């Protein structure tokens, strides 16, 4: 993903007479526009986001592992049933 931090935002609103790209970014933040590119995270937010990312990653790994385990057991049961017939 390209860094769009310094791009001039496209908007229909009249120009906000920014003195530079950073000032324009601050204007966006004041207006509460969720650009996401202009937010400067606090250390707490970064740490929390990292913890959430790890939790989501682990959940996905567990989910995949469970699907794999269920598949293996189901296949085993099907083979056993087929063998018993």
């Amino acid at each position, binding site marked *: 993903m390209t860094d769009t931090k310094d791009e001039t935002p496209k908007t229909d609103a009249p120009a906000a007479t920014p003195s530079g790209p950073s000032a324009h970014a*601050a204007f966006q933040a004041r207006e509460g526009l969720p650009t996401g590119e202009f937010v400067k995270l606090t250390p707490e937010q970064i740490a929390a986001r990292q913890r959430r990312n790890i939790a989501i990653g682990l959940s996905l790994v567990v989910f995949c592992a469970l699907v794999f385990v269920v598949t293996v057991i189901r296949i085993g049961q099907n083979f056993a049933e087929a063998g018993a017939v």
Partner: protein
Amino acid sequence: MNTTTNPGDHRAEGGAVSTASPRDYFDLMKPRVMTLVVFTACAGLVAAPVAMDPVLAAIAILSLAVGAGAAGALNMAYDSDIDAIMQRTRKRPIPRGVVSKADAYGLGIIASILSVMMMALASNYLAAGLLAFSIFFYSVIYSMFLKRSTPQNIVIGGAAGAFPPMIGWVAATGHISLDAFILFMIIFLWTPPHTWALALYKCGDYAAAGIPMMPVAKGPKSTRLQILLYSIVLVIFAGAPVLTGLGGIAYALTSLGGGALFLLLAWRVFNSRAGEAGSAEEGALYAVRVGDKAARDLFAYSIGYLTVLFAALIIEHGFGAYMAVPGVGG
């Protein structure tokens, strides 16, 4: 990432990015309720006459726990406005502002889909269908329609919490039987006296939030009477597993002793002034005024009663301790 503030850097500090931890999301799933769900589902699964592969059984129980948690998250998302008013729920993640409603809905919907899917893979489509229905029943029928509109909200809505042992049973057997229905009914009948006992000593909380719980809508006297009546029906019905042969001697004794104490506590509530002239507004779940102690005791004991009842079934069927009651049983 560099987070130091440089001169001329006008980026907003923090913005709307969350500081929620995984623990906050876990709290959305009502872990205490999940514990009881897992326990009762285990009882249904273990008591079923068909043995399930232990790994698949564990995955089915996990699916059920996640499904219950998903329903809890959806409930918290929808009820966040009244949760912020009530003392008992004020510290939940959404009222505290650490998790957004949208995030809670997202978690609830995704967890619902994954849990039902996993249940279908690990057991059968009927169990998965029941799980999907119970999630829908709790998060839509109960939370969105019943809870704020009728004093019978938890009587009807109690069905959602009664499904787990039936789902556990169906996961193992693939069909709904009379015994599965009896397990369902025990929790269904247990829910009103359990919840109304809590509502009696937290009725000020519910009134402030505008929830027509029985003590708020019909008054404490009527509620105490209904608690007693439901308790009598519950204790009688809790003996049904003995008649069908599902419960053995251990269950019968537990049901008799536990039921007698349940009735005693319900009688104390009936004769008390619980719920009269305000209630305990501050403090934790069990904090009450002196007059409300009988209701608090019944609320606390009812959890233990249900736990012991289902534990007896688990011990009898899971640990080979089953001994049929002479002269009865199917």
